[in-house]
C-alpha cells in the first residue's frame, strides 16, 4: 500500500473551518515519459480521492495525469461533531488506500 500522510487537527470548535491536508506517494505516471529504451511508460495514476466526515462528503477529486507526482490536496472541513475523518484513494488498477484520523469537536 502506498505511503500516505494526512493532517487533521486533534480538536476543533463546532462550526469551525478546519484545514485538512493529504498526500500520497505515487508517481502519477503521465504516459509521456520515456524509459531508457525510448518506449513511452504507460499512464499509471491515482484516479479518485475522497474525504468524508460525519456521514457526508467533504471534498473529492477526479485526478488526471496533469496533477503532480505524489498528489497533494488541502481543503477545509466544517466541524460539526466528534468522529473520524476518512480518506480514500483509488488507483487506476483498482487498489484502494485508506487513512483515518479522529477529530474531536467541542
Amino acid at each position, binding site marked *: 500500500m502506498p*505511503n500516505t*500522510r494526512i493532517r487533521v487537527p486533534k480538536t476543533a470548535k463546532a462550526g469551525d473551518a478546519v484545514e485538512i491536508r493529504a*498526500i500520497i506517494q505515487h508517481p502519477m505516471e503521465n504516459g509521456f515519459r520515456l524509459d531508457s529504451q525510448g518506449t513511452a511508460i504507460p499512464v499509471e495514476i491515482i484516479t479518485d480521492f475522497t474525504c468524508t466526515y460525519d456521514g457526508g462528503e467533504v471534498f473529492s477529486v477526479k485526478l488526471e495525469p496533469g496533477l503532480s*507526482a*505524489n498528489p*497533494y490536496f*488541502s481543503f477545509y472541513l466544517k466541524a460539526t461533531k466528534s468522529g473520524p475523518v476518512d480518506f480514500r484513494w483509488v488507483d487506476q488498477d483498482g487498489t484502494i488506500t485508506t487513512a483515518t484520523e479522529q477529530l474531536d469537536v467541542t
Partner: protein
Amino acid sequence: MNRALVAILACAGIVATFAAVFASDQVPTQKPISGYDFMTTEVQQLQDDDFANPGLLWVEEGQTIWDDTKVASGKSCASCHGDAATAMRGVATRYPAYSAEADHVINLEQQINQCRRERQGESDFPYESEPLLSITALVSAQSKGLPQSVAIVGPAAESFERGKAFFYQRRGQLNLSCANCHEQHAGDHLRGESISQGQVNGFPIYRALWQTMGSTHRMFAWCNEAVRAEPYPAGSQEYVDLELFERWRGQVLKIETPAVRR
C-alpha cells in the same frame, strides 16, 4: 605549497604529520551557499512545509525500514541503534568517511549497506532503489540543522584529493568542469535558470524534474551527462570521492534533508 619543501619534509620522516596539517589548512574557495538560496519561493516553501514536502514520504518509509525485524538476523536497525531520532543525530554530517572495514572512504548509503550485510545478514539495497533512498533520507534527516563536518585528513586525504581533482577536471564533449559552472558562475544563469554552487547538503533530495527522490550520485551522473561526459556508476569510488570533496566544500552548510530542488 612549495613542492621542494614537501619533499624535504617527507625525507625528514614527518610526512604524515605534515599531510594532516596541509589538508586541514585548506579552505573552500568561496563562501558556501545552499542550493535552497538559488530556488524560487515556491520550491523553498515546499521544502519548508513540514507536511507537504514530498521527501517526507521517503523519510517515513525509511522509519518503517528502520523498525523492520523481518531480516535474516531478526534484528532491525532499531534493535541495535534504538531510536533513529537520537541514535542517528549528527551521523550524516560525518559522511563520506574512512571505513576501517572497507579500508577506503565510503558514503552513508554504503555504510547503511555495510550494516545490512554484517548485522542483518541481508544483501545490499541496490543504489538508487526506493529502500536505500528511504533509509538514507531517514538517517540524514536526523541531522537536519547540523553543519556538515567531514574529515579530510589522515586516511581520507587521498580520497579528498581525488574528489577535488574531479571537481576541477574538464570533461565531456562540452568540456566543462563542475567548477566552471558551480564555482565560477554560481548565481549566473543558464538559460533562465540560476546556477547553484552545486552543494549537496540537502541530499537525498526531492527533485521536481525527477518527480522523485534522488541521491548525490544520481545528481553527479545527471550533471556529467549534461556536459556529455560518460557518467560513473552510482556508488563508484569516483563519485564517493567527489561527494567527500563536495561535503567539505560546503562544510558550514546545515543538513537540509529532505531538501526540495527544481
